[in-house]
């Protein structure tokens, strides 16, 4: 959306300003006029070249047999060997499904949480109380996953964790929660909600703030109850924002949350918790299988792109604008 719009604005503005000047002359004129700004851009562009585009070229090692001594260029080509290995590996299949399933769980469970939270918070009338709750619930967003995972390890500890302490009153446990494959994905989802429910609600609260108060007033005069107003005014009004946010989340479905999972998982739960991000890390930087790891990353990137283009297409169809 940004590019197209600005592109058309650019041409129309310059056309108005310099009628009758040839295109090349106009460009030269603008280059001279913005000389300082163009020089200003150089460091940033050099940074992009080195730190973004050089690694993009580095992707070629997915099609090579990377040898440390020969470097990226000197290593022999290997064709699609690593991709064949990838698709024949049952471990890779498992990791791929884990990524997808955790992504889908996030859409189903983690995504609605901040929406519901925002709606409920909006029903709090006590402004002071509301502000306090907001401040408290935003806080975990600013704490690193290392610390949050550490807290989870403590809280879920089978020896002295609070959760097992509470369960013991019901005659249950103690459980080694983080060693239980059947609930590991649940821990991922719940901890993710815990960390970001408050922060995620900001955008929806903003959308709710933008609703015309007259709608509520009219509804009140007509005798609508609060629930009626929530379901007939609040929710329909924020629905467009919710849809866009949802589609953005679908577009990022392949992003597995490496920091979160790497700090929570252990070999016992690899079967359900290992995702492409963590797998490519172990393959690449622990086992030093550089080419294979790059092939995994490339595959993840391409599948992610496919999701992104599909969601962008849907967004363009449903609303006037796409995601970009």
């Amino acid at each position: 959306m940004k590019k197209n719009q600005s592109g058309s604005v650019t041409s129309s503005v310059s056309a108005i300003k310099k009628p009758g000047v040839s295109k090349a002359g106009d460009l030269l004129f603008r280059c001279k006029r913005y000389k300082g700004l163009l020089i200003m851009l150089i460091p940033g562009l050099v940074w992009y070249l080195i730190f973004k585009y050089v690694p993009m070229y580095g992707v070629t090692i997915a099609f090579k047999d990377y040898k440390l001594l020969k470097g990226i260029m000197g290593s022999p080509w290997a064709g699609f060997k690593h991709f064949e290995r990838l698709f024949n590996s049952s471990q890779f299949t498992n990791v791929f499904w884990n990524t997808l399933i955790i992504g889908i769980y996030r859409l189903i469970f983690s995504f609605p949480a901040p929406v519901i939270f925002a709606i409920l918070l909006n029903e709090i009338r006590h402004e002071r109380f509301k502000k306090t709750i907001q401040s408290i619930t935003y806080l975990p967003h600013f704490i690193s996953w290392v610390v949050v995972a550490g807290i989870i390890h403590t809280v879920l500890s089978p020896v002295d964790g609070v959760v097992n302490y509470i369960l013991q009153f019901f005659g249950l446990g103690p459980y080694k929660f983080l060693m239980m494959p059947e609930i590991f994905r649940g821990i991922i989802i719940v901890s993710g909600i815990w960390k970001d429910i408050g922060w995620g609600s900001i955008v929806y609260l903003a959308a709710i703030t933008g609703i015309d108060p007259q709608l509520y007033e009219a509804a009140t005069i007509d005798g609508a109850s609060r629930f009626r107003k929530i379901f007939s005014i609040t929710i329909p009004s924020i629905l467009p924002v919710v849809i866009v946010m949802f589609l953005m989340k679908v577009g990022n479905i392949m992003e597995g949350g490496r920091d979160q999972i790497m700090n929570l998982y252990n070999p016992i739960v690899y079967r359900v918790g290992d995702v492409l991000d963590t797998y490519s890390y172990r393959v690449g930087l622990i086992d030093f299988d550089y080419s294979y790891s790059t092939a995994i990353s490339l595959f993840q990137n391409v599948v992610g792109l496919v999701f992104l283009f599909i969601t962008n297409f849907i967004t363009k169809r449903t609303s006037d604008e796409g995601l970009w």
Partner: protein
Amino acid sequence: MVIMQGVKKVKASKARKKSNVIKRSIGERIFDVLNYTFMVFLAFIMLYPFWEMVVVSISPAVEASRIGLKIIPRGFTLEAYRQLFKSKLIGYGYYNTIMRTVIGTAMSVVLCFMTAYPLAKRDLPFRGIITTIIVIPMFFTGGLVPDFLLINDLGLYDTLWALILPMLLSTYNILVMRNFIMSIPESLEESALVDGANFFTILFRIIIPLSKPILATVALWVAVKHWNAWFDAHIYTRSNKRVVLQLILRRVLIDHNNAEVTDTLQGDEGVITKTVEAATVIVAIGPIIAVYPFLQKYFVKGVMVGSVKG
């Protein structure tokens, strides 16, 4: 503009709420009670873990390993902190974390502005191409291994620069900043030009002062990211002299007994005690919690600016 409208609407909605308290049905009252209870519960489960860390860190060892809720500290000792600060590792960790945060944030904000400001000019030559160049990496990246090899080839492995340079720019931040600068009326610049102001006068007297809110917001984003970053330090550094706080935390909290790294933190029994673990957490998140209440509004404002399409 958009923010101003938002503020007006907040005020309007406050007024609405006051006039709205007429009568409530029983159902609505039950809903209110449940809603408030839920909010208090939520606040409790968000705060309790942090509070428990505080309590454990100042408790005597026996008390710290007691099972159950730890809301009121029983006993008080700073032994864990004493032990923690005896360790050289924490010194290195603090130094490196502060260095990367301060240098990294300063450089990031300057470079981000230098990239965003030219792109805010609608008739900048090559604007479309340059924008495309910086947007493409949002969708396609080299991946872990090519990044790692790059850092190696640049000779940055195990230096502080490996933690600063790769994080300098973020396309998202550039676009947010660009959009903000674009909302500054062009007539301001034009009238300054008419008054004979040159490029630098316009930059330092008009654009930068007016961009302060977005500069502050981006600075905060980058600073928090630096403070909390762990994975880059994990893969790009090796020696104890380059360790950052999050890496120490990872070794203490998740890997537990990594003897090579944490020996200075181990007590007499050769294990890191719970109290020292908790003290490490408090020391690492303390600065964030301390500044958070004062800076919260800037973070929130930033989200709003970012969500305004441009």
